[in-house]
């Protein structure tokens, strides 16, 4: 233990090279103002607001970059220091609109706020996106800057609104570089930079292109770290602050990010990253979670009323009528003619009830869900060692990373962020398969083979072969030496399902990482592992455990349906293609969104979206995460588990009096678990169309990009981000360019 004296207070601390005066002060509850500092970013030392006086050191030193050492005597405020900071802040505020800070009327203003909110340009207090909470204002107030002795200078830069999701108003920028640092150093995207220098410095992209062109993933990390109103989410910048904020789980992929949902007027208006301490994402998100959720849940494409078919016409009905009709269909249809389709984006509890209705009520194991193959493959192969599946923070302990089966930067940005952290500490990353812009920069080695051929490349890697396609013998040697020692991690994406033998492929991978290694399966859809646990697959029972009875997989169900041998289909996932199911007579469609199934439904049961329901989500780390009912489902929609429980009761299932999802979970937990390696035997689902291999996330029947137009802009730009390896030499390039400009010698 060392002791440092800050403002006459003796503070004990554990000295390390990283521990700065600022860190020690914060731990002791001493406030030192900062602007450029951010706890996720490396110290920068630019804003000078944290200058302190350290006895024996020349001049003033920034607390954020100075290591705290035993015996230091620090003063955070002296008359001279306060005056200096005030003057520096005044210089900073020359170019930052100061109406909110210096206006004489600002106290009274709250009462008489004008409603001119949508002025495109921020000229002062009320039109600033940060008017409700501003870090800069906090610092100004603390330091006590009350006048501006210089002529203010409005930079008059047009607000950048051409890109999706967020606006950029650099008139408010104070060049703290947090956005650039988070984009470069934490997310590894480097879609923005500081361009030029000195007073002309500004945040920009290369040659001023749009963010879509510069490779931005719209993860929103820059928006979240900006201390001013320069960067603001377009949808929420003018609607003030939430009345209530609740942390819940995003179900739009298998990561299970914690997201803070903000509510105002009883509606979901904000989705912002969850708390810093909340795993797995620790205050980071992807474009879906950060910007798409409010639009997605508030879209008019929601299913609104329970409906039943009367005289071949679907008409609104009461819940009782709808439930009874569904129960009647279930009771009246012979077991072998009923099929169930669960959704990987429903809660584990709801999925459990659905399979219970199938197995105990309808007496069939004809139940499956889209994406179950990959989940079953993973869980089956790792059955005898679940500790192979680890949490993302365990990546900090690995010595190398092998990634395969898709570009996880596109599909799983939060996982990508965790991987990039390792890249920054020089952990070699070996990627097999097609590659995108970020991975091109991150990967130490890239085995550039089409997705169909990754199986071959992997088996060669496992054999430590020196002839591996697309790389030199030397590179192969180096890779072999990397992967044969230390602890490895494998990031495996669902596109390994596109190989001839995914089972073999995964076995080869497991052979490469050996006993110590860890696996990160990137589940593309959401709660796949939860659904496996719930037994929502023909060959798996709740637990999960092996089911020896014969059931029907999704593919088999479709085949049977196309022959007209299925009379009733209970489907909860509108994302499943209708093709093949046209001959099914009765369809119970239970979903929060209208889809192609709506018109075919015999009974329509409107359900809640994930932000409106309670339940459990199991993410790719096998972490059990809570979903919370933040607002009531809109119109007459109900939570999936409630609907299913009512049906269970109506068909007379025993033990169906659950008070809450917790009761269901407890029942599920009592099931005996036990999977075998060979549960993945029968392929249940293949993409209907080729282009479905492209990333186009869906949520229970709706392609998110159809509802969130800004997302479509990003998705449309993705093909241009794929890296084509073949390229010209520098000589060729320069020769080509020289032809374009008039040569110096033309005149001679």
């Amino acid at each position, binding site marked *: 233990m060392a002791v440092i004296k800050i403002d006459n207070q003796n503070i004990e601390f554990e000295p390390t090279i990283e521990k700065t005066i600022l860190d020690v002060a914060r731990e002791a509850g001493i406030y030192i103002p900062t602007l450029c500092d951010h706890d996720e970013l490396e110290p920068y030392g630019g804003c*000078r607001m944290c200058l302190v006086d350290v006895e024996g050191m020349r*001049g003033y030193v920034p607390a954020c*970059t100075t290591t705290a050492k035993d015996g230091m005597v620090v003063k955070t405020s002296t008359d001279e220091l306060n005056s200096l900071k005030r003057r520096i802040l005044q210089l900073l505020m020359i170019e930052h609109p100061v109406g909110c800070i210096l206006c004489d009327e600002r106290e009274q203003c709250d009462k008489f706020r004008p409603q001119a909110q949508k002025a495109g340009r921020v000229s002062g207090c009320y039109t600033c996106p940060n008017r409700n909470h501003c870090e800069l204002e906090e610092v100004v107030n603390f330091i006590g800057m009350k006048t501006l002795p210089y002529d203010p200078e409005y930079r008059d830069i047009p607000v950048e609104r051409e890109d999706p999701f967020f606006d950029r108003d650099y008139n408010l920028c104070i060049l703290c570089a947090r956005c650039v640092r988070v984009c470069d150093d934490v997310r590894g995207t480097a879609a923005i930079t500081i361009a030029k220098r000195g007073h002309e410095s500004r945040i920009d992209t290369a040659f001023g292109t749009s963010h879509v062109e510069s490779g931005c993933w719209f993860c929103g990390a820059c928006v979240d770290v900006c201390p001013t109103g320069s960067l603001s989410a377009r949808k929420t910048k003018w609607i003030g602050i939430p009345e209530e904020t609740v942390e819940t789980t995003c179900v739009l992929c298998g990561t299970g990010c914690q997201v803070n949902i903000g509510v105002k007027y009883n509606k979901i208006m904000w989705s912002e990253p969850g708390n810093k301490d909340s795993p797995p994402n620790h205050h980071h998100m992807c474009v879906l979670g950060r910007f798409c959720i409010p639009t997605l849940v508030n879209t008019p494409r929601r299913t609104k009323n329970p409906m039943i078919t009367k005289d071949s016409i679907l008409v609104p009905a009461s819940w009782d009528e709808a439930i009874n009709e569904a129960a009647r269909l279930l009771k009246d249809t012979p077991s072998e003619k009923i099929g169930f389709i669960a959704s990987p984006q429903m809660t584990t509890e709801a999925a459990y009830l659905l399979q219970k209705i199938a197995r105990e009520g309808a007496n069939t194991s004809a139940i499956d869900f889209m994406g179950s193959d990959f989940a079953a493959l993973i869980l089956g192969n790792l059955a005898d060692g679940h500790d192979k599946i680890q949490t993302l923070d365990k990546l900090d302990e690995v010595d190398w990373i092998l990634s395969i089966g898709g570009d996880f930067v596109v599909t799983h940005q939060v996982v990508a962020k965790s991987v990039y952290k390792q890249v920054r500490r020089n952990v070699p990353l070996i990627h097999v398969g097609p590659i995108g812009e970020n991975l091109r920069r991150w990967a130490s080695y890239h085995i550039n083979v089409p997705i169909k051929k990754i199986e071959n490349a992997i088996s060669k890697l496992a054999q430590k072969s020196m002839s591996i396609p697309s790389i030199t013998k030397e590179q192969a040697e180096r890779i072999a030496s990397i992967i044969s020692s230390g602890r490895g991690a494998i990031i495996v994406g669902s596109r390994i399902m596109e190989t001839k033998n995914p089972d073999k492929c995964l076995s080869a991978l497991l052979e490469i990482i050996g006993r110590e290694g860890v696996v990160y399966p990137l589940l593309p859809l959401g709660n796949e592992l939860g659904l496996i646990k719930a037994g929502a697959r023909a060959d798996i029972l709740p637990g999960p455990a092996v089911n020896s009875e014969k059931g029907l997989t999704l593919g088999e169900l479709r085949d049977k349906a196309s022959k007209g041998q299925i009379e009733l289909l209970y489907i909860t996932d509108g994302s499943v293609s209708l093709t093949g199911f046209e001959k099914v007579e009765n369809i119970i469609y239970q979903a929060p969104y209208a889809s192609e199934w709506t018109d075919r439904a015999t009974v329509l049961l409107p359900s809640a979206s994930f932000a409106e329901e309670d339940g459990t989500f199991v993410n790719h780390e096998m972490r059990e995460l809570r979903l919370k009912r933040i607002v009531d489902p809109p119109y007459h929609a109900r939570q999936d588990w409630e609907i299913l429980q009512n049906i269970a009761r109506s068909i007379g299932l025993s033990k169906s009096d659950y008070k809450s999802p917790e009761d269901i979970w407890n029942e599920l937990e009592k099931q005996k678990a036990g999977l075998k390696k060979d549960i993945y035997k029968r392929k249940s689902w293949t993409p209907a169309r080729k282009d479905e291999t492209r990333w186009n996330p869906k949520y229970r029947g709706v392609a998110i990009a159809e509802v969130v137009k800004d997302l479509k802009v990003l998705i449309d730009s993705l093909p241009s981000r794929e890296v084509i390896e073949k390229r010209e030499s520098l000589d060729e390039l320069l020769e080509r360019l020289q032809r374009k400009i008039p040569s110096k010698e033309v005149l001679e």
Partner: protein
Amino acid sequence: MADEKIELLVCLGTGCESAKSDVLFAKLSDEIKKHKLENKAAVKRIGCHGLCQQGPVIAVEPEGLFYCQVKESDIEEIIQSHLIKGKPVERLFYEHDDGTRIPHYRDIPFYAKQTRVVLKNSGHIDPSKIDDYIAVGGYKGLERALKEMSPEEVIEEVYNSGLRGRGGAGFPTGLKWKFARSSPGDVKYAICNADEGDPGAFMDGSILVADPHSVLEGLSIAAYAIGAREAFIYVRHEYPSAVASLKKALKQSYERGFLGENILGTGFNLDIRMMEGAGAFVCGEETALMASIEGKRGMPRPRPPFPTEAGLWGKPTVINNVKSLAAVAIILREGWEWFKSIGTEGSPGTAIFSLTGKVKNTGLVEVPMGATLRHIIFDVGGGVGTGREFKAVQTGGPAGGCLPKEKLDLPVDFDSLREAGAIMGSGGMIVMDETTCMVDVARYFLSFTQQESCGKCTPCRMGTLEMLKILDKIREGRGEEGDIEKLLELCDTVVKGSLCGLGQNAPNPVLTTIKYFREEYEAHIRDKTCPAMVCRDLVKYVIDPDLCIGCGACSRICPTGAAQGEKKQAHHIEQDMCIKCGACLEVCPPKASAVLKIPISKTLADIKGGAQ
């Protein structure tokens, strides 16, 4: 003596080269061949000889004769008279103030009053030939270090010599090395900072051109001492001849086994890589320089941690200036006691300046530390030379300050200059006479640092700009009472608040000019006049019709057509069109001297009336 071959050393330093000395070199070589004098005479290229003012210069060895301002047409005479007849060309010798000619450079006051230690080889050896360097004792220091001394002993030697960093801050070199050596880690780097960015300074560039091996030797010794196996030289891109010279020297060093594997058979390995800067003054700051080598924006980062703990790629790194490293080679060769005997107690060794501005002998000057400014400017430099009064001397580049007459007897060393408000800097010294406006000079330096600010920290980015605005106001005659105080307050903010040396020292020119020349600021603010008649908004050009002979020279040269008039008639200047470039004044025939520069508030009649 008669048998000894005559060597004609043609200076190819920047000054002489710009004056086409390369043509002289080519012509001399041709002529010697043509006249079959190869046995009698040889032509050699040398780096800066020192007295740039007289360029192009040719030194003739071994006699030590010195030809000044040689033109292409003089070559024939040199061949015929000097080489063939043995009669040196007297009219090309240096002309002393009293009109006499001085044949030997050692007798020219400019050289006679200097003490050349680091510059000893400059202008005497052919920098493109490693053997020339070895012949004068080169690489002896490295050999001694590698073969006879442990790294610790080398550090001790440098520490004992008292050598302080010649880059400007004056930190003891030996101590810096000690820190780097004791920092944990296997990988360490040594860097030579040759990013000489101060406007008005060209010492480092000259040494790299004239004596590159001395720098490589010093850098190798530094690397050995701290335990580095890789070293870098960061050279300013604007110095193509220094780059070329270094490239050649590096190649030769590798060929001769002074670099590479198993140097001098001692088992010591070292690679030196050269890296060119790309035009950013701030990269002279060591943390910015390292960022630049790493391929990043050259933005400084706060220290501590110092580069000796965490430098290039986070590894312990030593960064030394060109002159420090050249001195290191000498210290290892001659011993620390000898070095310490030169200069003062606190600042041993010599100081090297590039002496420019309003001074008779511009050039490269080396004097012992502790010599006075007067000695440098008047004894060596020969005084102002414009016939006007000395006004100020600026040292230390944009981070330095302007010292007035009263400070001429100040001894030049790290500490006394800093005390006076200026700094040693890397060694630019610019002399100013009464035609220099101190407000304009302060603004010039400030605009330089303002443009070179990296923009990372607020005080430097915004503070220098705000200062510049005030200085512009003053210069343009819009100054107000209180502006000086505002400036001083801003200076304080920028000095105390900035992140790196660039910002912390940027206000020095303003501070010193206010300290020593406050009345000039006041004249601009209160009387709206520029005493030196420099600030263009406070002066105007007029033509005295009584004196104008109507030659039309002014109207021909005037870029805007403001100077107007009929042939043979008195001309006049249309003030609205005039951009005050002063071209008319320059071309007006001396016999007429009709163009006058007068304060903006005055009329021609005022001036003439005043004269009567």
